[in-house]
């Protein structure tokens, strides 16, 4: 290791990451152009249109990326609490001064038609602070105290965003469980999360509590019978059983008493409990039609009728993948999903080559957030997860989202470029 060699600004930059970043931004820009095409302003960079604005955001993004690369690495770990504090304040402010768009009070108006969405930036600052905390010398996340502190770093912004209420962005933070898992939290949490998702679906779909609880008890009894030598496991299983049963009942309770009707309907549609393709299910149905009509090679750039004649709502933002699926077909879907998979696997690879735990933990945070966005967004457009509005990273139209992901990725690139250097945190 030679730490004395001459360093340029772009020394050790992971160009593959930069390439993926630019590729996704370009794909997004092209598809927004197709989705939001305005005959009066056909030019790609006309800022009267969404694609023109998106171009502007990409330019700003690249600029911000360059600035990040120019900064000192320690800047991010040192200022992590500050970033976190600012975003939390913004999240509180948005509840007071925010603009209400589509039922969510999530935007702060910046004037000139531009709006800031603090929840997008909260993802970045939470990852940063979590990395900062977990990389502390005496922190063992498997210990209860550390775990609780880490958990509260994650849960606090969730709580604030829930008040907007923006269910989609709230759920994004739950993905940080992957980070905790990687840093030593018991795998039971991951298993429990998987179990929760399964139980959630079963509870609502079967609508028969005795059956599910009976099944759970039977399953627990079977496991205990098989491993009756292992006393410790029995205790874990019994605890898990209790948690699961409690979960089932609370899902039932939340579903029937707490969820708002429109949220219920979204869940119902995904679970196939109701089919309402004229009303609440219209979006998802039209989105599926758009993607399904793409076949192998798609209908061609600017040729998708679902896109062109605005059958799919929110086409350039949450439902941008419809345009990809319709105009570029399954081939386009493979390319986009392939790029994302490559991106998250690349980030994991980068994470594991870091000497600094801070960089590693932060990288896992970024990977988890991107991954969660991709799965939920695309899953929503093809009707496998409830339609909760979160953007497709770097592709969806939107300055806050694009900037937030740009910052996340470029900070990672910056940290990575310094992997051979001093460990600050």
């Amino acid at each position: 290791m030679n730490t004395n060699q001459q360093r340029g600004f772009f020394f050790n930059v992971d160009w593959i990451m930069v390439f993926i970043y630019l590729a996704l931004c370009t794909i997004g820009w092209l598809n927004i152009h197709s989705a939001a095409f305005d005959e009066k302003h056909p030019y790609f960079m006309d800022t009267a249109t969404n694609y023109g604005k998106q171009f502007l955001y990409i330019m700003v993004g690249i600029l911000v990326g360059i600035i990040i690369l120019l900064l000192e690495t320690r800047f991010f770990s040192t200022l992590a609490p500050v970033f976190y504090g600012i975003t939390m304040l913004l999240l509180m402010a948005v509840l007071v001064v925010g603009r209400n768009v589509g039922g969510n009070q999530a935007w702060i108006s910046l004037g000139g038609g531009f709006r800031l969405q603090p929840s997008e930036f909260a993802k970045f600052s939470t990852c940063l602070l979590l990395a900062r905390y977990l990389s502390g010398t005496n922190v063992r996340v498997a210990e209860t105290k550390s775990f609780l502190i880490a958990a509260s770093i994650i849960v606090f912004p969730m709580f604030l965003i829930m008040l907007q209420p923006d269910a989609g962005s709230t759920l994004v933070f739950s993905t940080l469980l992957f980070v905790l898992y990687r840093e030593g939290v018991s795998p039971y949490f991951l298993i429990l999360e998987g179990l929760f998702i399964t139980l959630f679906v079963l509870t609502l779909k079967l609508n028969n509590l005795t059956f599910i609880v009976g099944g759970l008890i039977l399953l627990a009894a079977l496991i205990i019978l098989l491993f009756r030598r292992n006393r410790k496991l029995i205790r874990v299983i019994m605890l898990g059983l209790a948690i699961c049963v409690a979960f089932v009942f609370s899902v039932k309770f939340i579903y029937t008493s707490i969820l708002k009707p429109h949220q219920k309907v979204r869940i119902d549609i995904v679970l196939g409990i109701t089919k309402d393709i004229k009303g609440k299910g219209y979006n998802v149905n039209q989105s599926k039609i758009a993607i399904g009509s793409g076949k192998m090679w798609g209908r061609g750039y600017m040729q998708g009728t679902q896109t062109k004649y605005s059958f799919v709502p929110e086409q350039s933002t949450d439902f941008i993948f419809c345009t990809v699926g319709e105009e570029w077909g399954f081939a386009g879907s493979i390319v986009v999903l392939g790029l994302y998979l490559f991106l998250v696997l690349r980030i994991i690879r980068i994470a594991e080559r870091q000497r600094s735990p801070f960089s590693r933990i932060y990288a896992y945070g970024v990977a988890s957030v991107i991954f969660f966005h991709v799965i939920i967004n695309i899953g929503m457009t093809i009707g496998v997860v409830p339609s909760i509005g979160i953007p497709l990273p770097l592709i969806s139209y939107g300055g806050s989202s694009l900037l937030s992901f740009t910052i996340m990725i470029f900070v990672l690139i910056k940290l990575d470029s310094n992997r051979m250097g001093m460990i600050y945190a």
Partner: protein
Amino acid sequence: MNKFFERRYVIAGIFITLIFILLARLFYIQIIDDRYLLYAQDNVLRRVYTNPARGPITDRNKKALVQNEPFYDIWVTPKEVKPFDTLEFCRLLSITKDDFNKQFTKAVKYSRNLASIFEKQLSPQVYAAFQERLSEFPGFYSEVRYLRTYPDSVAAQFLGFIGEVTDNDIKRSGKYYRAGDYIGVTGVEKSYEDALRGQHGVQNLMVDSRGRQKGSYANGAYDTAAVAGERLISSLDIRIQKLGEQLMKNKVGSIVAIEPSTGEILCYVSSPTYNPNLMVGRQRGNNAAELYKSPYKPFFIRPIQAYYPPGSSFKPLSALIALQEGIITPQTSYYCPGYYWAGNHKIKCFHNEAHGNVNLTSAVAASCNGYFSMVFEKLMNYYGVKNTATTFTNWRNNVTKFGLGSRLGLDMPSEGKGNVPTTAHYDKIYHPGGWRSSTVISLAIGQGELLATPLQLANIECTIANHGFYYKPHLIKAIGEKEIIKPEYRVKNYVGIDSLYFEPLIDGMQAVVERGTAVLSKIPGVVMCGKTGTAQNNHGEDHSVFVAFAPRENPKIAIAVIVENSGEGAHWAAPIASFIVEKYLKDSITTRESGITPEQFINANRLPDLGNYSIKGKVKPTPKDTLKKLKTDSSNKKARINTPVKRNKKATPVKLVAALLERKDDEH
């Protein structure tokens, strides 16, 4: 690197798995499932159909019977409407403010972005005034639509009418029709629907999610233009059709005239009739309701649906069968004392007139009931009294060859069969073998259970005029620009009577007009051969019947006229027939020796008294002995239409012969 290093594989594994699940799902909906492409096309494609013009119908001389005239529908797109002078608007369309508000609310309710119909079928006059001001009313626009009009308002029952398609029509047509299309409901509009309707034009348009038009699909590569329906040339002659309808004014009955050398129907009058223009346009519903209420049933198509006893007009046919069977010769003579004893009941000649010595020709001329009863008994007993049933069946076969008792296959819907009784019918009333020639003797003079439609009667005259065959009668002469004639109309249908037997009979029929019962109706310069009939029925006065053809050499027209409840054939039916024949042959009507003029008949009112005429559920089983009269005339048939035929037959097993015994059988 720390001790949880391997967990990276778990996390990467989860990422890969979930992404592949998404890819698998995408593979399914994009590659495997073909429905979505269709759905996408359904979303965006709108087929706009243009209506073809329905084929026009002309008479045999290409004079229009039905035309298409433009009418104008006013459409409105609520979103494009800007404030305007509503009062003036209402005045131009002659609607009230309330109507306006009602229609406009309806349009808004349907859609703000899409056009909906505001006012239907404006006449060209109203539209002309409106159109000048149309630019003052943004959001409103007009669309032309062609409606049927009938310049001479004749032949309503022949032409029929069109109406909006029902769900069933749409289903049956295999998607040809769409809601709002018109389809022939009755008459030629129904039977020639396939030729008349033409083909829809299709425009493939692209629309957005709100249904707004966004240009044509594939630059109109799949668009087609509407193809107008075929023109039909009917066989009717509008001159005599008009005259016939005038002559039958205020009378109940029917005229059917056929060209014997082709089977083309020249005149097809059903009276009372109605103005076919009433069944078009905005008042159509009200008009139809009025017409349905009329006790004289103008929608009833008497030429093919009304059943009448042929009465004496059947005699020529009786004679022909006897000649063919060799029972009589033209010279066979019979002494008529004014009556005939069949078994133990007496059949009187008309007015008890004694005709003295008659042969075939003079018996026809004088309409001698005695002679024909004698012939019929001889025929029935030819193979012995025991074999009456067999002989009767044989006789029946001969009669049905003339087209009686079954449909002639006219190119019109709802043709009736008439009735020729079967042996089974009599076996049921009596017991098998329990009836004799004397029991069914009234058939000899065209009474009894024998029932025929005016079309069938006219067709028999064609057969006589042709000396033994007829062409299938039809109302549409030729189809389309190429004037295609169906091949089935060129086939001669032989009735099984040798042509040599016709001359003596025709001599008799000529004598009927020259010096016999119909002498009043003699046409100067035209040799007409005819036969009068006076058909008894249970609805008051007898029906006046006359059948004829003319001229004798190379006949041009065969005709049957029935005037219900008007007494002797000679008094009403025969003069009417003679006017029509003369008009057709000479295109003018000359002064008659007898002094009768068409005007006398046009102005005469022979509508039956409604007290007698009204038909209530009819046909309840009546005790045999009270059956004084045969239930036979058009109203009779009407009841059949109302009640299922089979049950009807069972319910009235017996209009019969016990009654016949009591009946005065004077016919002439």
